[in-house]
């Protein structure tokens, strides 16, 4: 029997297991998937947890529920990959593989910045990119009396690059509903040169920050956190005070990638942008947040990648050339607060533009424009995630490659 091994049972790994179990010949191939945790988290829900919009139970489920029959599931830590020897060392055993899929995602690394994970971590410095961080922040916000709140991005790339901005919009909405918006000063701090660095987004969306009275600090390259004076300080010696710092720390691939010598500076695996084959080893494929491809690190992107990757694994097995098909397609809802949201649909080449989606001229979703329907779309995404996305069921009318239909391109 040949072995196809999937590392990581998050969004991408689980989708690949569901796709491939239907496609590979059971008499020839054994599929094994490995993850360290019992629990599968719905990470997009971490954005809503701090504002008491979602409960704990809505963002986590037992992971093995989503692993299909016929796939061997091992819950353990992956210690090292030996790509030249086609084997992977786990805590208690070593497994050989014929084909490897790396789906180990990425995670926050607050220790990269001096003072970030210091004595005030989860006291007045919080992240919302982990379950624990998001929950701790919810508890803090429940009885926070107000003051200066910074919503801060450490460095790019981060997963779901719009999440911090959504956090700012939702915070505005949350404090308004609590009748204490006048007691909170919200500032959005980014290392980029604007909240939206793509031209059309910037033109259409900058009003949102003004309308919501959210300040913005751009080009802020953080150097350290000063825990004595509650300040963040950047390399150009600019200082920003806070009472509450909500930060998105550096995002990095797992240490196992570094330990196996397979990653770049941030432990992302160099990957072909269109085939998703690793650049170093031809029987290693990479998907989702673990890759270094210049697409958004998002569940929707992983979903489109999974369709291309499934085809490419079958082509690889058949000894045929791979399809250079993946185009960087991303489809993201952006919560703007007060029960509205925006929708953006873009790829490597085309930046987000106005239009209707998925049906040209009809919608019902509007691109790059706030609407209540878009907000329902975002909330429906949780149901779609658990019931369709993880199972590898295609989303009706939304193809793996970006469609230009209904889009107002230049």
């Amino acid at each position, binding site marked *: 029997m040949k072995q196809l091994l999937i590392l990581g049972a998050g969004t991408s790994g689980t989708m690949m297991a569901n796709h491939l179990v239907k496609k590979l010949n059971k008499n020839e191939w054994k599929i094994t998937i490995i993850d360290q945790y019992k629990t599968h988290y719905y990470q997009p829900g971490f954005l809503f947890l701090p504002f008491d919009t979602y409960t704990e139970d809505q963002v986590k489920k037992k992971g093995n529920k989503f692993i299909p029959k016929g796939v061997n599931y091992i819950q353990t830590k992956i210690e090292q990959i030996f790509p030249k020897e086609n084997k992977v060392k786990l805590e208690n055993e070593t497994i050989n593989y014929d084909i490897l899929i790396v789906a180990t995602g990425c995670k926050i690394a607050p220790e990269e910045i001096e003072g970030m994970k210091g004595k005030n971590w989860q006291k007045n410095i919080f992240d919302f990119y982990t379950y624990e961080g998001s929950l701790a922040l919810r508890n803090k916000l429940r009885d926070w009396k107000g003051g200066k709140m910074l919503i801060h991005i450490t*460095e*790019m*790339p981060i997963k779901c*690059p*719009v999440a911090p901005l959504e956090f700012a919009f939702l915070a505005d909405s949350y404090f308004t509903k609590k009748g204490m918006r006048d007691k909170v000063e919200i500032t959005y701090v980014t*290392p*980029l*040169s*604007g909240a*939206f*660095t*793509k031209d059309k*987004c910037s033109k259409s969306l900058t009003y949102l920050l003004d309308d919501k009275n959210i300040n913005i600090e751009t*080009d802020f*390259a953080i*150097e350290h956190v000063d825990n004595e004076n509650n300040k963040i300080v950047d*390399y*150009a*010696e600019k200082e920003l005070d806070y009472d509450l710092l909500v930060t998105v720390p550096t995002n990095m691939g797992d240490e196992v990638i570094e330990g196996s010598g397979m990653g770049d*500076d*941030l432990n992302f695996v160099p990957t072909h942008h269109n085939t998703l084959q690793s650049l170093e080893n031809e029987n290693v494929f990479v998907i989702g947040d673990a890759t270094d491809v*210049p697409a*958004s690190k998002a569940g929707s992107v992983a979903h489109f990648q999974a369709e291309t990757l499934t085809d490419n694994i079958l082509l690889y097995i058949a000894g045929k050339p791979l399809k250079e098909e993946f185009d960087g397609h991303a489809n993201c809802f952006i919560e703007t607060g007060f029960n509205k949201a925006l929708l*953006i649909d*873009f790829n490597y080449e085309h930046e*987000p533009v106005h239009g209707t989606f998925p049906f040209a001229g009809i919608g019902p979703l509007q691109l790059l424009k706030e609407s209540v329907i878009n907000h329902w779309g975002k909330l429906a995404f949780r149901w779609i995630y658990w019931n369709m996305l993880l199972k590898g069921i295609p989303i009706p009318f939304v193809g793996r490659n970006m469609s230009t239909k209904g889009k107002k391109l230049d």
Partner: protein
Amino acid sequence: MSIDVKRTDEGYLANFSDWNKEIGNEIAKEDEIEMTDKHWEVITWIQEQIKLGKALSIRSIKKSGVVDIKEFYKLFPRGLKISTKIAGVEKPKGCI
């Protein structure tokens, strides 16, 4: 001297092939930067990275072996934005 080659709205060179040291110097002056050997060393390093197709980031500066980040900001107070402009390469890309 004025710069009579094509530039973007934000002042970046439209074509790197137009770049030379004088143009770099002029762009630096617009930002009140007096270029020294150390400045040029960084500029050369940036141009090499772009040629190799590598993405520039603060983190890559740290690993450059040419300057540390503090020194980099002393040389170029507006960081990568201005140093890439002087180097005649594209503005570093962000996400959305």
